[in-house]
């Protein structure tokens, strides 16, 4: 599953725009993931992040 490192996130929304499932949402400065719809393994969000705030970790 993806893990959002809130101390690293710059809440820019780059990941939100490329998420093919629409699972990410930026609520003000707080990035959230809908774990129901996240495909978990595409890693597009962790790839695109300019700061490295999204990790992919084994469940």
């Amino acid at each position: 599953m993806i893990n959002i490192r809130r101390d690293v996130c710059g809440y820019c929304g780059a990941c939100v725009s490329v998420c093919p499932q629409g699972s990410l949402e930026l609520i003000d400065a707080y990035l959230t993931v809908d774990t129901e719809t996240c495909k978990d393994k595409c890693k597009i969000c962790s790839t695109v992040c300019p700061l490295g705030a999204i990790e992919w970790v084994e469940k």
Partner: protein
Amino acid sequence: MKEAYDILVVGGGPGGALAAKAAAEAGLSVLLVEKRPAIGAPVRCAEGIGKGALAEFIEADPKWVSTDIERAVLVGPDGTRFTIGGEATGGKVGYVLDRKMFDRELVWRAAEAGAEIQVHARASAPIMIDGKLQGAVIHQHGKTYEVRAKVVIAADGVESKFAKWAGIDTTVPLWELETCAQYLVNDIDIDPKANVFYVSNEACPWGYIWIFPKGPRCANIGIGIAGTKSGEGHRAKDYLDRFMAKEFPNAKITELMVGGVSVCRPLECTVADNLLIVGDAARISDPITGGGIYNAMYTGDLAGKVAATAIKNGDTSKKALMVYDKTWREGPVGKTLARNYAVKESFIKMDDKKLNSIVHSMSDLSIEDLSVKKLVLAIFKANPWLALELPHLLKAL
């Protein structure tokens, strides 16, 4: 907040502000919601805009103009520099703005025109009745409101969630999303009248590095790279830090900004029943420069006017709103986007050897203005091998 408005605008950037202003000026009731607690912050922008483009909508004001730019300098991978502008352009190139103040001014003007502004107010879902958009659920200060509107204008920027919730796929392909990092840098030696662009597939793959002056010894220094070129150890910030260590090791950094810019084609359609999509949310930032302020202002203003006419005529169906899509797509904005997409596609993947060859050839060019068409034609003339490599591009110009 009332229960119903003629128009609900989601997002308080330049697109949303001009949409709200145009609709309010047409006499409609307008609510603009901005999810952040402040208009204009945090900045996610290099803040450059052409003087002519800005003047179409607002007179430049020192309150929100940081610097007056007279030249653009292109720097090739081996450091060769090519300057465009100066005397040939009569000093009329562009500005670097202070977006925190600029965005506030635009929203203030919308409010003056009669639009209601709500900050820290987030649209979380569309209200759909019989498959048609009828408003949005708004959260503010721990309360939830159902706000009805005849037309919603989605101006929610690069994230573009609202249109997606309403059934339009706004997802940007990873390779066409430029992932960006930028520092506000102080105490550096720069040319305060020049915007500098560095191209190199090694230093900034499928993107560029920019220096946009914010004052005499101060600048936005940033980078955009393609999403597919990003990854652990080679993210936008990693590339930027390498550039800073090499070019400005003693710089004082006072702000970090990050963001995403789409360089894809615009959405196939930017309207639906009771819905208009403007600015970055419609994927209409410039594919070459990543610039989006003017296109957002243009489409925002147009959307506000089209929505007002449709409401007065009592028909806000997709068919009635299509005039918005058709007008921007077939006008100068749409044509420039199509042309610049073709130019971007042709040059973005070039290796540094070819980029060097192009920048070297440009030192002999006499270019009168910053027009993309003239620049590309001159580059083709000086580099005959390009005609073989990019046979389709000349047609696209």
